[in-house]
């Protein structure tokens, strides 16, 4: 049994942000996450750092929050942001009234929007449709949610926090209005770990109600599915938004070598209903192609969906629910040491974490104050790294490697095959994989994926899977076929709705390769032994 001051349930950006904030204030804490960090809505979001402009007219509270956090974010978490800026565009039949209100609403909420001419917009974004009638420049940016979450986790660990992935909360033991013990299962080996926390923070996002129910409580929230499609190639320099009342198919976000188009809003009943459908894919492509026509002839590589944990439960339309967040102190419902946090956006995670941490700190009597708006998330000494390998490679690797850049570069340069490119879509080096394979958090091949971007390029792991497996087996005695199958299943999740044209052919080819080289179909039928008898 382990005693601690704070137990945080949920390793998405909210949980990670709270962990960092509290750890920096001196709290003793443990964070548990049922799968890998950022595998909930955080890892399935659009990757937008909002300027707030999208909410200026209809959701001014959110807009103000986003506008303020946007500036802070760019100061403290530079390493995971592509500060590309963005443009809001209206098309011919869009509500011109909305466009007029847009600028004044932005001013009122502190969002830095500026109208530009159509010519200027087309110059900045040559792929924009020629049908646009008005354009506004905003400080939107693209953010890597995996890096961000891991950055918070590592920063928390630096301040002595403990963070455990693949640990699932099974039970609360409640004693006289207090959560006395939390029973957690370690999914790596099936063992049970018992924590005795002073405070429990429920930051489990779409699963908040499930966790609350362990204490026989319920939270009023709406689960709202948003789907995105990953389009091959960077079609825009910055973000593109539709200038109208927030609807579906409004947004295009450039992210590394892809463009992510989104999003939809569909009410669902459980956090497991997170598959994007063919209809959603067709719709998103059609709708966003109105802004960037080339989307219609580009290659859709993958579709994915995340579940938004929105506050409140009576609205029929998910879009009408405010994107602000809600703190729930369950002492009002009879459990003294239980806090839940729902709602919010990736952009405002730091603010959410600050508020939660303030509440926790006051309950614990912690004296430290919040410095997360000032202290940068990570700082790495870059000089000696650049000296050792070519700067283009160094930049990329350093960015991804968080606090471990030195060790990663060392592996790349000193290991025999360290500089081999294993993933040619994302240019991931063998040394990087070799480092992360040894990291305590890494259990599956998809964990490696989230940390190095291997398999996230347009082949979605088709070719690099072999190199990936060969790196992994050096460091683990897991059954390689089991690892292979689980990775393939993970990658296949988002492929079904985009199986047409180029993608269909590619999946066919991968089938050829994987069945042909690994005889996967025979493995799955349990027929290897029979093959042996021939």
């Amino acid at each position, binding site marked *: 049994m382990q005693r601690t001051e704070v137990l945080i349930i949920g390793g998405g950006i909210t949980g990670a942000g709270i962990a960092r904030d509290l750890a920096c204030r001196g709290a003793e804490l443990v964070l548990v996450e049922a799968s890998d960090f950022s595998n909930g809505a955080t890892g399935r979001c659009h990757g937008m750092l909002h300027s707030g402009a999208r909410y200026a007219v209809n959701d001014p509270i959110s807009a103000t929050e986003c506008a303020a956090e946007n500036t802070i974010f760019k100061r403290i978490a530079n390493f995971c942001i592509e500060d590309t800026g963005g443009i809001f565009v209206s098309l011919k039949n869009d509500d011109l009234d909305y466009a007029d209100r847009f600028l004044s609403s932005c001013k009122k909420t502190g969002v830095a929007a500026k109208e530009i001419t159509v010519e200027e917009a087309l110059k900045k974004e040559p792929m924009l449709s020629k049908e646009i009638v008005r354009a506004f420049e905003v400080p939107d940016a693209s953010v890597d949610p995996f890096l961000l979450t891991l950055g918070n986790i590592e920063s928390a660990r630096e301040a002595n926090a403990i963070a455990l992935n693949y640990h699932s909360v099974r039970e609360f033991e409640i004693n006289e209005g207090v959560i006395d013990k939390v029973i957690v299962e370690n999914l790596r080996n099936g063992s049970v770990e018992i924590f005795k926390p002073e405070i429990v923070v429920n930051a489990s996002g779409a699963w908040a109600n499930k966790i609350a129910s362990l204490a026989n409580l319920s939270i009023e929230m709406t689960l709202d599915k948003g789907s995105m499609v990953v389009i091959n190639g960077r079609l825009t320099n910055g973000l593109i938004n539709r200038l109208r009342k927030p609807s579906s198919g409004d947004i295009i976000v450039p992210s590394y070598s892809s463009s992510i188009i989104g999003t939809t809003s569909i009410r669902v009943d459980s956090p497991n209903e997170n598959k994007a459908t063919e209809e959603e894919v067709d719709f998103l492509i059609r709708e966003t192609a109105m802004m960037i026509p080339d989307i219609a002839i580009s290659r859709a590589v993958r579709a994915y969906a995340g579940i938004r944990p929105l506050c409140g439960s009576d609205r029929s339309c998910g879009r009408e629910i405010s994107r602000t967040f809600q703190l729930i102190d369950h002492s009002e419902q009879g459990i003294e040491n239980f806090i839940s946090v729902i709602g919010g956006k990736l952009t405002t995670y730091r603010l959410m974490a600050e508020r939660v941490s303030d509440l926790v700190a006051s309950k614990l009597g912690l004296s430290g104050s919040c410095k997360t708006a000032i202290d940068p998330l990570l700082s790495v000494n870059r000089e000696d790294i650049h000296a050792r390998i070519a700067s283009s490679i160094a930049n990329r690797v350093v960015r991804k490697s968080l606090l471990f850049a030195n060790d990663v570069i060392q592996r790349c340069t000193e290991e025999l095959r360290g500089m081999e490119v294993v993933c040619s879509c994302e240019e991931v080096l063998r040394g990087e994989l070799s480092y992360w394979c040894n990291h305590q958090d890494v259990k599956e091949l998809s964990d490696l994926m989230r940390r190095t971007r291997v398999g996230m390029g347009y082949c979605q792991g088709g070719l690099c899977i072999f190199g990936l497996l060969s790196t992994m087996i050096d460091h683990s005695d897991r059954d390689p076929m089991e690892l292979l199958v689980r990775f393939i299943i993970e990658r296949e999740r988002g*492929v079904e709705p985009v199986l047409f044209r180029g993608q269909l052919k590619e999946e066919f080819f991968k089938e050829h390769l994987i069945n042909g080289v690994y005889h996967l179909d025979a493995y799955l039928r349990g027929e*290897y032994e029979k093959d042996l008898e021939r």
Partner: protein
Amino acid sequence: MRKILNVETDILIIGHGAAGLFSGAVLSSFGKQVMIVGEGATSTSLSTGNIIFQRDFDGNVEKRKDREITISEALMPYVFREHLDTEFINAEIRAMTAFLLPRLNNCGLVLNGSINRNQVLLTNTGFPYSCTFAQMFASKGDLTNLSEKDIALLGLLGYKDFDPDLAALLISKIMNMKNVSAYWTQISEFRRRYGMHPTEVAHLTHNDGFQEQLANAIKDIDCDAIGIPPIFSLLDYQLRMTELEKRTGREIFEVVTPLSLPGLRFHEALRLAARKEGCRLSEGLKASSLRIIGRRAESAILKGKFMDTEVKFGCLMICTGGLLGGGLIANGNKIADSFDIFQVEKMPNFTYSNTKYGVHSLIQMIANYGLKADSSMHLYLKTGERLENVLGAGSVLEGCSFPAGLGLGGALLTAWISTKNALEVLDQ
């Protein structure tokens, strides 16, 4: 202004993959004038070159989605479902193998094969990591009793595509073999840190210095048989492998790796075999339309980049391949043949009973389409009619395409049987 050249031939074969090339070689060997045209890639050249005729449905009845099928049905390409005679199929497989092997031998690639019991075990070079050792060729001898031997796998630093540790692990775990060991060696010209592409490797391997070093590395390893990565090009293959075996006193076999595209070498060997038999091979021409008079197809227009050819033929064979080869095309999952005149049908689905791999079956379901053919391999038009002199072979046929069908084995077998019908058509 597009020029049109006029050509005549006995047989026009459209499709230059395994089915097309093999059909051409067979028909040419019977003295017929054969013209093979093809365009673009082939699934054959992207495959692992592994030819398996029989999935192991030993003694059981399998369940397909809507009905139970007998073992015999599972053993052969779907197009032969009316021939439930296993004996017939096995006899044809043997005859086909007897024709194919020596011709591929002459092209330096396939060197030996084993036929035992009711099974034909054929592949070109090497084996996939997890396939039975028996399904493999080496430069001489029969490797069917490899499980009793000491096997070593040798990786070359710089050839990043082959990891002997991974291969050894898979083979020993999955095949329950205790005596597989892995080694690495460094040969001087190889750029080990950054990895080399298989083709640049093949370029370095034909010189004597390389082979000397490789032989020495092999001699240092105590084993009966040793697996090396696919480092020799087709033209050198037989010579190099035999020489290596002589120098080292070991049985040498080649291990298939993902990027080595062994199907490419198999395809090259088939091309050479077809050319040696006297086929005329015109690659880069796309079949665009057929001229049909009554119940016969008379000629086809083939389009090149700047010049067209009109080919008059006695018999036409369609071997354009499945989805990957471009013979069948899918638009939003609606499958059509590339001419849009033949009838496309769907084979009943076959789903694996305990697959965890959901999308695997999805691809299978898409792969179960193909051109409808009768038992004499004549294709059906969309109108329901059959033309007297148009036959099909290969993955383009209903249910023949990998992974639903038998892949290369199905392509070769359907080609073998189709050519008999083609000869009949020509003799009429």
